[in-house]
């Protein structure tokens, strides 16, 4: 598990990052925490002759909590997310989810930017970002642009980001109502067998808003608009939850792996979504 030789860059500003990317095209890649990229390089599944370390690039590590939105810099680590009191108050689901990613060692290194840019269906943040309707900020040779998290993922490791673009951060509207992030995994440090993110708003005893996204059950994260429709306007009773699960199952497309066969994954996805909705609703 030795990577092929590579040149290491540690630019001091974004301009320099972009110029290295422009110069080397496909052969260059940015590195954030390195906890997805370096294992791939060591397995020689990723060949990165020019590795650009982002850690000295300024202004990528801030968390700004405003009245109606939250902006998180790409280099904010999962540990930072967990430790930030203001963030936990404004969007407790971030902390609940981040605590279920990997283990403390990985979380000290792994960043939100790397997690969402990576494009691995196993990553937890992409589904969460879709649930929260986040916007991703990208910068490239042609300037800055924004993409909705729900439009970002195309296939495993394929995203809307161009090779010469860098993700600078994410913005999420301050989440409302009850929340829950549930993840079934085989052990600490494992990617999800099935995971669900739910935000839900209760008015009286009726659901007026919901958001549902699933992780590691397709080659991209799955935001399930139909599951949302099945919940909004209901009292989130058993029938509504069943309808939401059925809708979600239509949207996902899990594949067999060491975690189990497709039938099992579908079943667990349903169980996990039910638990997530029930817990979120109980907090709404």
């Amino acid at each position: 598990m030795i990577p092929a030789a590579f040149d290491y860059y540690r630019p001091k500003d974004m301009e320099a990052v972009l110029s290295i990317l422009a110069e080397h095209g496909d052969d260059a890649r940015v590195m954030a925490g390195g906890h997805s990229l370096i294992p791939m390089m060591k397995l020689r599944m990723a060949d990165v002759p020019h590795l650009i370390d982002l850690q000295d690039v300024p202004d990528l590590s801030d968390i700004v909590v405003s009245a109606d939105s939250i902006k998180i810099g790409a280099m904010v680590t999962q540990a930072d997310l967990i430790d930030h009191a203001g963030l936990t108050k404004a969007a407790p689901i971030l902390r609940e989810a981040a605590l279920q990613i990997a283990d403390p060692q990985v979380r000290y290194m792994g960043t939100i930017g790397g997690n969402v840019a990576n494009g691995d269906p196993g990553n937890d943040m992409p589904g969460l970002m879709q649930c929260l309707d986040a916007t991703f900020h990208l910068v490239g040779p042609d300037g800055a642009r924004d993409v909705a998290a729900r439009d970002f993922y195309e296939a495993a490791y394929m995203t809307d980001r161009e090779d010469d673009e860098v993700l600078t951060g994410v913005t999420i509207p301050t989440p409302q109502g009850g929340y829950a992030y549930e993840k079934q995994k085989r052990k600490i440090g494992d990617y999800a067998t099935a995971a669900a993110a739910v935000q839900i708003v209760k008015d009286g005893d009726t659901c007026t808003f919901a958001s549902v996204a699933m992780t590691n059950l397709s080659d991209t994260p799955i935001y399930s608009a139909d599951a949302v429709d099945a919940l909004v306007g209901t009292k989130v009773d058993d029938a509504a939850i069943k309808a939401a699960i059925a809708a979600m199952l239509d949207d996902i497309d899990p594949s067999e792996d060491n975690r189990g066969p497709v039938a099992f994954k579908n079943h667990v996805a349903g169980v996990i979504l039910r638990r997530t909705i029930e817990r979120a609703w109980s907090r709404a």
Partner: protein
Amino acid sequence: MKDEISREERVDNLKGMGCSRKRVEDARFTQGKGNYVDDVKLDGMLFGDFVRSPYAHANIKSINTEAALKVPGVLAVLTAADLEPLGLHWMPTLAGDKQMVLADGKVLFQGQEVAYVVAEDRYAAADGIEAVEVEYEELQVLVNPFEALKSDVILRPDTVDENGKAVDGAHGPRNHPNHIFTWEAGDKDPTEEVIANADVVAEEEMYYHRTHPCPLETCGCVASMDKVNGKLTLWGTFQAPHAIRTIVSLISGIEEHNIRVISPDIGGGFGNKVGAYPGYVCSVVASIVTGKPVKWIEDRMDNLMTTAFARDYWMKGKISATPEGKITGLHCHVTADHGGFDACADPTKFPAGFMNICTGSYDIPTAYLAVDGVYTNKAPGGVSYRCSFRVTEAVYFIERMIEVLAIKLDMDAAELRRINFIKKEQFPYKAALGWEYDSGDYHTAWDKALKAVDYDGLRAEQAQRVEDFKAGKTRKLMGVGLSFFTEIVGAGPVKNCDILGLGMFDSCEIRIHPTGSAIARLGTISQGQGHATTFAQILATEIGLSADSITIEEGDTDTAPYGLGTYGSRSTPVAGAATAMAGRKIRAKAQMIAAYLLEVHDNDVEFDVDRFVVKGAPERFKTMKEIAFAAYNQAIPGIEPGLEAVSYYDPPNMTYPFGAYVCVMDIDVDTGVTEIRRFYALDDCGTRINPMVIEGQVHGGLTEALAVALGQEIAYDDMGNVKTGTLMDFFLPTAWEVPNYETDYTVTPSPHHPIGAKGVGESPHVGGVPCFSNAVQDAFRAFGNTHTNMPHDHWRIWKTANELGLHD
């Protein structure tokens, strides 16, 4: 001389047997100051690594090393063609088979060693590996041993004669070219007759899946050939350094005195580091060729995919009983998947290890066992993972058969065990499959265990849970896992145990220094078991010097006496016995010296903790420290100066530790997630040398058992690809997954061991696996489950629930 401290204080100061002395090794391990093989760094040292086969079965049409040799830093690339003139392209295995060192025309498993790249550092070696071009011709892959026994595909050309007929193997005739051996124990016809005429017969087929011990430190070595003095030094992760020295000498022709094998600190072995690997041979050859030291260190994937695996036993059992539950007969057939080469490390006469301990803790009058070993396209290995020669398989088999029989009889499984246990007064007990159990008191241990967990209360709670489940009040079932195991360890008596002709005795050499401290060297080698701590305790009690004043040294064949190493829980039963016996020789001489110094007859002094006292006059004594000084510095008529002793110990029998385990588990039937609420482990390992070290061994072994039972496996797809080659998929539990273990004990000393100790290193693994598995199976008993195969990971448990109709 007046004694200032009490006798109790003198006993405490010794830190001898029975005291929870802190491990002397831990100061260096916890400070990162251990010295492992990868810490060995020599001037000009090169690094070697393997080109490995991506295919499980293929012919090798060509190997082109040209491009690799052009990679900066790459010095040489060895292939089978280079080793053949030296006769080193194949090597003997410890099971009497032979194994390719580098692919000789074909490969038999994914990850097999194809070429060895020697480079200035490991980075250049990795680049060199990428540049070696190997042309493969894929062949039909056999990953199932039953298919292998029917197939026209012959895996090993050396198993057939020129007419294509299977030739005899190391353990007798083959009935198919892919068949390795048939091994039998017990009486076939009488057993079959008993079963045919029995009132009650339970049958079951079970697969004990392939897994791997995955020691934290992978395997590796540094070979250094000194061309000036002709000496080869080989550092490595060797659980049996002397055996390695002898084997290296036999296959290389280098005289044994010119070979020095050193096992430095070893980061876990579990049997994975007993055998000889191609990496050792290639590193030695590379060092001879280049004249420079050569290091080889596996990465995690190499280790998981290619080094000694564990289990892979397909077991078929029949057990018969009277309607009251008294067992009358046991029949077991095993189809054993050995992979591409038979590279187990069994004693020669035991190609299926001690599988014939499979009558377990029960008085079973008639039994028969047959094991068929089979070649497949999987990695070689077999005897590893705290299994002490297939004892883990045997205990799993019988502890499952008992449960299956209990279901058939509609009886409580704890009671069924109780009425079939070998009784205390039956020891030494001659079992139907040949072994003579040394000692045991199973009923006492069982009663203690069941009482400790409030067994009846657990069953009542479980029954209520089943009611609640049926009433839709809960989706969680509760399982009570039981296991009562009898281990067989301490191989072993030279009359029936040898490996490649090397008798399985062990040894200890003690040198007392004039000021009353000592060094003792043993033929064993610790891999984390804490030998430096516990062997010093044995000696402290035997020779009356404080354990803190005794250095224990192992692992350097230039200094340590010959021994067969550490595996199969043999260190305490064999080398521990040698230690006590050597200590007694020291004491015998000390007694003569004391008598001389005290001016009395030899028989008029007696040993007391740390001194010899004149019988009836305890105020007249000589401490062992005083005696040591006199031994060197006082001319004593008729006695040679010095105080040293050596003992080579050939045990008269194995030892038979046992234990009673109970696991309480909750299972979410919808997700297959398990939660271990309680785990109680009672171990009887005879005399207890260091209770804390025992507890540590039990915690470690149970954690491994948990892993194996609940998810750890080396899984292959139909093409022979390893699906679990990294720690992402290979389950290694962390503190998070591990429950709180309650440990307990009884003490039934071994009657034939000098200090009565039996060994404990493997017990918790051996007994733990069936206990965890039985808990899962038991949770579903009320719904019609009799048996499901391990590993009980989420999806397989879910599948069981699904098949039993528990999902709507």
